[in-house]
């Protein structure tokens, strides 16, 4: 059964698009059929992160408006053939996305893919609520920093109120993904610790992605970090997070740059 997951945060620039690309690629590498959908109309970036920017012909809005069929807008990744991108429109404005149109596209995607990852725009306005609307699950991307945690809390409130599942009285599966984590600074008490963030937001932890130069390098190259440097710390952290998303039990660690060396954080498993 298909799983629609929104990657959201409230606050901008915390790593939603990076995480959508990396998790999408990791899931696809594990053999799952994955579509990553860019909901950031007017500010699309997922195409760049996947190195597909020059292959975009049609986009989400064209499909929503019924101008083209879904198959015409989907772009297949050149490296992993189970990974597909549905790009956002760069020119149209977001009001062109109708509720019914988006519902239809998501329903169509559900019949073709195992995973549909929706890259949400920042903010709590219509763009963000549209991206979460039909989700079965949510990945709340959070940096260990006060404004990001506050905005995550706000988004969690929206997930519990504005999604179709919540309105039906069902539970939407929510996870926290901590990104740009710096273990050394957290140990020195300069940065909120993982335990602090978990206690404040009280949701299961999907993974901890360390701050790393490899992420910028990956975006320069137009490849998700799990492909540009699979052995790097952020790649291993994203691969672990993808396995947890698939329901596997993976010990929660912060992979460090030194290969094979893991910092064990806590023994308990994350949901």
């Amino acid at each position, binding site marked *: 059964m298909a799983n629609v997951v929104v990657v959201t945060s409230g606050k901008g620039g915390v790593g939603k698009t990076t995480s959508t690309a990396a998790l999408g690629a990791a899931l696809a590498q594990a053999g799952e059929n994955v579509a990553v959908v860019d909901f950031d109309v007017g500010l699309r970036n997922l195409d760049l992160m996947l190195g597909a920017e020059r292959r975009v012909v049609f986009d989400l809005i064209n499909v929503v408006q019924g101008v083209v069929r879904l198959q015409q807008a989907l772009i297949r990744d050149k490296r992993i053939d189970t990974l597909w991108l549905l790009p956002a429109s760069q020119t149209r404005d977001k009001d062109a996305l109708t509720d019914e149109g988006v519902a239809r596209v998501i329903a169509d995607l559900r019949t073709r893919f195992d995973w549909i990852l929706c890259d949400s725009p920042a903010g709590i306005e219509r763009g963000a609520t549209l991206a979460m609307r039909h989700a079965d699950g949510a990945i709340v991307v959070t940096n260990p920093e006060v404004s990001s945690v506050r905005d995550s809390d706000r988004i969690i409130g929206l997930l519990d109120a504005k999604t179709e599942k919540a309105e*039906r*009285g069902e539970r939407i599966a929510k996870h926290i993904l901590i990104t740009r984590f710096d273990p050394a600074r957290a140990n020195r*008490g300069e940065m909120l610790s993982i335990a602090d963030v978990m206690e404040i937001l009280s949701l299961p932890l999907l993974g901890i992605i360390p701050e790393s130069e490899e992420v910028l390098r990956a975006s320069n190259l137009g490849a998700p970090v799990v492909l540009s440097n699979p052995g790097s710390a952020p790649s291993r952290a994203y691969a672990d997070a993808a396995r947890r998303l698939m329901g596997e039990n993976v010990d929660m660690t912060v992979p460090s740059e030194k290969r094979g060396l893991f910092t064990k954080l806590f023994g308990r498993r994350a949901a």
Partner: protein
Amino acid sequence: MSWSLLFKRRNSAPVARERLQILLAHERSALGRSNLISLLREEILSAISRHVKVEPDKVQVKMDRGDAVSMLEIEVEIPNIAQDRALAG
């Protein structure tokens, strides 16, 4: 620079944590975060869990809004109670 200042500089995370806890407690209640349905579901779940084991997603609360009155529909799937009783007794 005094030692106390140095010390404070080094440990800003606990301050961040405390500020967040206070702020979010306030914002959650101000925003009426507890949307009625999810609040009811959580409380029904915890009430039932005190007596029988129940899976969180086996508790469904629905609201059918009508003009004059609304229907609150609660559906709870619980495992065999007789068996639980036997265990408890």
